[in-house]
């Protein structure tokens, strides 16, 4: 498929630090660098997948792009407009175009609202449609996500996890957004239901011409749905590129280790694993230089002191690793 190289969203040097309070006066004694200098471009009509372990900052990245969290530094440019520092009131106007689907379908739907009210609410807030128009739109959206029109009278607890996620998707689509962020949208679902929701998201992308930022920890799911994939480690982008490159020819030692750790449902391909020592260091006190050097099987002296930048390696694949910048 020929990719239209028109940028929908540009993220430039985005940072989100959370203060750590301590001592009897609760003064700020440090920062958790959840997102630390991330720059990405998202092109119209594509799905960019973001993978990483817990604590890598992938969810914070999504939330900061949508201004659900205010960035510490950096810019988010949506269709040429910088939305990183505008007032929240003005931001509301952009929210029509940018929506989010959350992980936990049990926590993200208000249990006291009927499904109809839940899907209608964004249209009410944005005040763009009349009553009758809104009701028609609700029924239409329910049909599009595979639920019967009667569902609008019911409450979230009457639905299963997969059906609730469909409701969450219908709500996200109610404002005809251009850009949807899915934050682990299928992680809480059983596999047979997970594939239903993934297929639905693909169908809706085609139908509504959507651009997705798909955040997940499951590398197989991300590979299935994405056009390009970014791998995050401790708040930074370790590697990003077209999925074929990332999965078939990973360059960053972390990407290699991550891919080799995924258990494959095939007994004949029990593969040789690259074992990583230890666990993710605390993001409040990240290692110096390359943050991965404490676990990296190929670390050398330079990695401890100098932070690698993302460097283009051809075919749109960028990697932040000293192995590819003239070695030690």
């Amino acid at each position, binding site marked *: 498929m020929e990719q239209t190289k028109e940028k929908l969203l540009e993220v430039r040097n985005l940072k989100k630090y959370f203060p750590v309070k301590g001592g009897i006066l609760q003064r700020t004694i440090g920062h958790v660098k959840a997102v630390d200098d991330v720059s990405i471009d998202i092109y119209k009509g594509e799905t960019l997948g973001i993978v990483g*372990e*817990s604590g890598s900052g992938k969810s914070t990245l999504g939330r900061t792009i949508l201004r659900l969290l205010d960035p510490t530094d950096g810019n988010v440019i949506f269709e040429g407009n910088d939305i990183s520092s505008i007032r929240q009131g003005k931001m509301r106007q952009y929210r029509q175009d940018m929506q989010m689907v959350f992980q936990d379908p049990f926590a993200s739907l208000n249990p006291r609202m009927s499904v109809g009210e839940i899907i209608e609410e964004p249209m009410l807030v944005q005040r763009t449609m009349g009553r009758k128009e809104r009701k028609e739109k609700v029924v239409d959206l329910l049909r599009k996500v595979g639920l019967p029109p009667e569902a609008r009278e019911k409450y979230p607890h009457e639905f*299963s996890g*997969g*059906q609730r996620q469909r409701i969450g998707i219908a709500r996200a689509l109610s404002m005809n957004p251009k850009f949807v962020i899915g934050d682990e949208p299928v992680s809480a679902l*059983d*596999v*047979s*239901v*997970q*594939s*239903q929701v*993934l*297929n639905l998201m*693909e169908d809706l992308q085609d139908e509504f011409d959507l651009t997705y930022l798909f955040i997940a*920890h499951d*590398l*197989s*799911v991300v*590979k*299935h*749905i994405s056009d390009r994939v970014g791998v995050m480690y401790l708040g930074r982008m370790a590697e990003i590129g077209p999925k*074929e490159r990332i*999965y*078939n020819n990973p360059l960053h030692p972390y990407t290699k*280790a*991550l*891919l080799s*750790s*995924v*258990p*494959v*449902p*095939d*007994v*004949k*391909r*029990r593969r040789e*694993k690259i*074992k*990583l020592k230890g*666990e*993710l260091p605390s993001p409040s006190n990240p290692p110096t230089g390359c943050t991965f050097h404490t676990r990296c099987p190929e670390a050398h002296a330079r990695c401890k002191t100098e932070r690698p930048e993302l460097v283009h390696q051809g075919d749109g694949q960028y990697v932040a690793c000293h192995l590819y910048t003239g070695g030690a």
Partner: protein
Amino acid sequence: MRVLQRSEHLLEVKDLKTYFHMEGGRTAKAVDGVSFHIDRGETLALVGESGSGKSITSLSVMRLIPQPPGDIVDGSIKLDGKELLTLSDREMRKVRGNDIGMIFQEPMTSLNPVFTIGNQIAETLIKHKKMTKKQAYAKAVELLRVVGFARAEEIIHEYPHQLSGGMRQRAMIAIAMSCDPKLLIADEPTTALDVTIQAQILDLMVEMKEKFDSSILLITHDLGVVAEVADRVMVMYGGQIVEEAKAEELFTNPKHPYTTGLMGSIPNIDGEVERLESIPGTVPPAHRFPEGCRFAPRCKHVMEQCTQSNPELSEVNRKHKVRCYLYEPAGGEGGHQNGTDERKTVRST
């Protein structure tokens, strides 16, 4: 020392039925006639989605079903030839910890937050192995080393909240292994962990199994994990076993439409499919199982007889059992092509 009669199988479960009595006189047949065995040194995986009854099966084996509302209404569970269902609570406590070790999904909730790690390992040893406190702590340090803690002497004085998820699961394994159990029951042991940590813990479990010469009953929803460690696999659906085979046989030649549907639903990291297969609908709740085959309402090969009676779990060949009319000699003629053949696999370049 009592001489134990070594029976053929380490664990033998026959026709286990665990029901839950609900309000309004309804009964949820969470486990409904499950029979299986585990051999010595074997790793048996019990696979299923939420609501399939896999966890209730393992809790029944440990006799940890809350009574009421739960009730093991029928069946037999024999560990090393000894019937567990007739044991008194006191005798059962001896079996748990001594003969059966357990690891659960969320190590934060299964470790006691107000006791140190050392305390929790030593407790088991003092209770079950009649060790002195000093001996028990020395043994605790040794066990923590075995499960991969470099600074074991310090860890015994630490509390669960001071450890990360992967470290807690290691500590949990140390506790489970402390009394040298014959059987290790692991209920979703790596589900809460990141993939790189998951790989470490799976390796550790296999290593511990060999070192302590025990068997593993692994309960999981993740077919990838199953392929990684299991010798034999049972697939559960609606409180019953629907397919059972050696791991290699099951993954190369899955038969039950539920198993093939499940496998088609998983995106494959090595190949690429344009569209994932999906099983319509959801797992039925245990108090509203359909008449006949419990998978029939979601099955794309459903036939008339499927809605009338529930097929038996029967052998299709010596190493493979399936509960499906498609494979019964009297049922589906000439067998049936399994669903994986229909997937169009396109290799990405």
